Every structure is written in C-alpha cells, then in structure tokens.
C-alpha cells in the first residue's frame, strides 16, 4: 500500500460490525478481499463491466470494484459468504437443503471443519442443480445478483431474468443454464416470501418509492414468526 492517508470506516459485513482504517481510493472489493479475507467475491474487469464482484448493499446488488470502501459508511454489505444460513430458523430450514457431496463454494477456502458441509442458500443450490457454471469465476457475482432480484420483483421467466442479468458476464456457459438456475432459485425464493407473507412476516416495506429492503439473506433466511 502506497497510500498512507487512511480514514475511519464503519460498516456491517455479513451481519458483523466492521471498523477499519482505509485509504480514500480503496475499493470495496479490496477491503473485502485483502483486509477482511472474504475471497468469495471475485475481482474481474475492475471497471464495472463484468459483474463478477457483485455484492449486496442494504439488499441491493452493486459492483464492489466500482464503489469506494468509504462510500459504504454505515451500510450493510452481504457477500457470498454471508448467504450461509448459519442461524437457520424453522422457515429457513425449508429453504435450504443439505448437500453432502458438493463442496460449499462459499467455504472453499475455509479450513475449519472441512468434514461438515454447511447447507447452501436456495440460489446456490439452484446453480448446483443446473450445473450453471464452468470455471466458476463469475458465479458468486451471478448468485448475488440473482438473490437481489427477489426484491426487485423480477419475474421468474427467462426473458426477465436474462435482462436482469445484463450486468453479469460469463465467458464459459453461454448463459442458458445460468438463466435456468436463476429461474428455479427465484421461483423458490418468491414462494418462500409468499409463505412468510402468509405467516404475517412483512418482508417488504412498500411505503417508499424504492422498497428499502433489509439485507436479503437475513430477511429470507432468518425470518421467523
């Protein structure tokens, strides 16, 4: 690091309060990968074109290579690692399925308890079900983008999903299986939200022009009656 001038940054990352001193030109992805060791988010083009670095900020998808870490003051960031439903509530248990024969992409670099595989998020599982990846470099960005679609009310049909995935490039698969995976995942997440709605959990706040959703994963997976 050449830049010695650092400024205080406080934000939430995957539900945990983080306090760091960062240089003014540090991007969010540099903070996530280099300072916090969250290497599930991949650094692609570095100019907001490929979408590999997509993470959620207050539930909305953004490209973490193209925002400054300091712009995230007071915001809640969710990375692919944060999708892990470690505090599964009854509803969330329905939303996830144990996978025993597939390494959890979110924990590829985790050395802790490698015998025990954590369950996958609905959208991660959908990508596994459809084999929606080859090299996998774009995958965490694709999944984070797809998770945010629930709150944008993206329809679970091919055309709408392909359009909504416009900011994420994959150079291996030709997108077919990715779109199919997102269709499945989005459909299941929408059903889950419907279910929560029926049980009286208000997962959305309609009082604003733009639904200001709490963190997607917490609202979907940790909601309990």
């Amino acid at each position, binding site marked *: 690091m*050449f830049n010695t001038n650092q*400024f205080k940054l406080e934000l939430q990352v995957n539900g945990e309060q983080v306090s760091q001193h960062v*240089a*003014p030109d540090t991007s969010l992805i540099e903070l996530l990968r280099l300072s916090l060791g969250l290497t599930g988010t991949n650094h692609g083009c*570095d100019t*907001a074109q490929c*979408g590999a670095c997509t993470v959620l900020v207050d539930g909305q998808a953004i490209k973490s290579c193209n925002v400054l870490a*300091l712009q995230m003051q007071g915001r809640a960031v969710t990375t692919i690692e944060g999708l892990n439903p470690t505090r599964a509530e009854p509803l969330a248990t329905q939303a996830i399925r144990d996978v025993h024969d597939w390494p959890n992409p979110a924990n590829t670099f985790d050395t802790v308890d490698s015998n025990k595989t954590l369950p996958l998020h609905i959208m991660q599982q959908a990508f596994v079900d459809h084999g929606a990846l080859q090299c996998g470099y774009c995958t965490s960005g694709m999944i984070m983008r797809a998770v945010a679609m629930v709150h944008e009310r993206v329809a679970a049909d091919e055309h709408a999903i392909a359009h909504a995935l416009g900011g994420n490039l994959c150079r291996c698969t030709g997108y077919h299986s990715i779109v199919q995976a997102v269709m499945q995942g989005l459909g299941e997440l929408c059903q889950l939200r419907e279910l929560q709605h029926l049980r009286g959990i208000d997962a959305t706040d309609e009082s604003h*022009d*733009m639904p200001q959703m709490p963190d997607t994963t917490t609202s979907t997976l940790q909601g309990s009656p």
Partner: protein
Amino acid sequence: MSLVTGYGRPLSAQAACAALQANPNAKLVAGGQSLLPTLRLGLALFDEIIDLQGLAPDLNHIERHAELQNGTLTIGAMATHAQINASATVQAFCPMLTQLAGRIGDQQVRNMGTIGGSVANHDPAACWPAGLLACGGLVNIASSTQTRQIDIDDFFTGLFSTDLAPDEMVVSVTFNKPLAAAYLKFEQPASRFALVGVAVAQHANDFRVAITGLGHGAMRWHEAEDALTKATQSHATPLAQALTPLHLDPELASGDIHGGAAYRVHIAKVLCQRAVRQYLGIAT
C-alpha cells in the same frame, strides 16, 4: 493506484462546495459509476475525494409540483437511477423518464449511479441530458454561499462541460411535464451507453427533440422540432412523415470504433422517426 490522498464526507451541499473551493484538485463523487473507472484507468487526476453519500438522505427526494405550469418534477441530485426507475411519482409524471432510468447501464450500476452525477458529468453518451433537454426544465445549483437556477438549455456547454463553476454542484434537476414523450436509444452492447439516444417530447405549443451519443454532448435538433411543430399546427404533413426530408449534418457528430459520424447521424434520424411513431402508437 491513484494519487488520491484526501477524503471528505460533507453533510451539506454548502460544505461540499466549500471543500471544492478549498482544494481545486478535489473531486465530488456521487455514485462514482463514471468517475471511479476513469480514475482506475488513469484518465482522471485529482488528489481528494469529496464523498457525497452523506448528502443522499437530503438530496434523493422526488417531488411533484402540480401548481406550476402543467406541473414540474424535481429530482434530488443523489437519487439513483434505480430509485427513479422504481418511483410511482416519476411514472405518473412522465413514463419516458421511468424507461430512460431503467435502461441506464445495468441494475448494479443503477443502484449506485445518480441523476446529479450524470447531469454534472455530461458524458457525451449519457441518457439523462437528452431526457432533460427534451422535457425542458431547470438545474438547481449550489455553491458554498448561494444557490441559483439555470435553464437546462443553457446548462450543457459541450463535451463533459457544463455551466457549473469549479466550486459549484448540482443539487437537483426540475423537469417540465410534456404532453407525451418517448426516449429511444441504440445501445453500444457492451457498455449499454447510448451509441445514439433520442428523446422526443411534445409540449403544449411545440416539440423538443434532444439527441445524445453524437460525440459532442447532448444537443437539441431544432429543425426536427420545427418540422414536428409545423406538422401538428398545419395538419398538412402527417406527423410520422414530418422528419423524412430532414438531414442531420454529420459535422455534428464524431465517430469512434463503434460507429462513424455519418452512421451516427443516420441512426439518430431513424430513432427520432421511430420515437414519433411510438408516440403516435404506430408500429415500426
């Protein structure tokens, strides 16, 4: 690695402008979606970032003023494209603006990028300048000591240039309400910037036609406006054919690897005709 060593997070437009005044090499960052890649590619040189995120709560309002003229709509500079796209107020005021906002970049970019940043940056391929010129309206500007308004027709002064003084910032933009309007853009497929974009708006007494993407910044096409206005008044020419005899001078455009000047002006005219037909409900 850049040369940026300073950082500020002002909580008011006045404070942001004071910081600009104090350091001529400082740069305002709204969403940063245009500026940060520019910085990364070494195309911008500044040594201090003035982060406007702290102003977002005060400057992301979307307000309709029904009492003025046919009604105007004011959007705060820190409103994101996604927020504008999702706004029922904007949709009710002018659906063209909703569509325009929803087709800028991709969702991730729209979640950060702001209307104020787009207007102040005046990228020659940006969408908002064309939409704003076609609607007509005002840009509301602040400095550290005062505020002023400027007619949108006087705001854009050329490629990446506006009437903003070095220590001023855009705090909001005000749109006039057209009777009907359409925005069409021919996208550069990789960046989704407009290779060419046109906004055509009918107002009570005239038409306004604005084009972006030609290379020198957003501009109005006055000949097209006059032809459409005349066609409406005289009924001699069907509106859908009013633009047929017109010729947009390739001198107004500049070419790049994505399209030459002659190609761009051709596309601009075709899009204008399509926009008129879309407005008339005639299939293209």
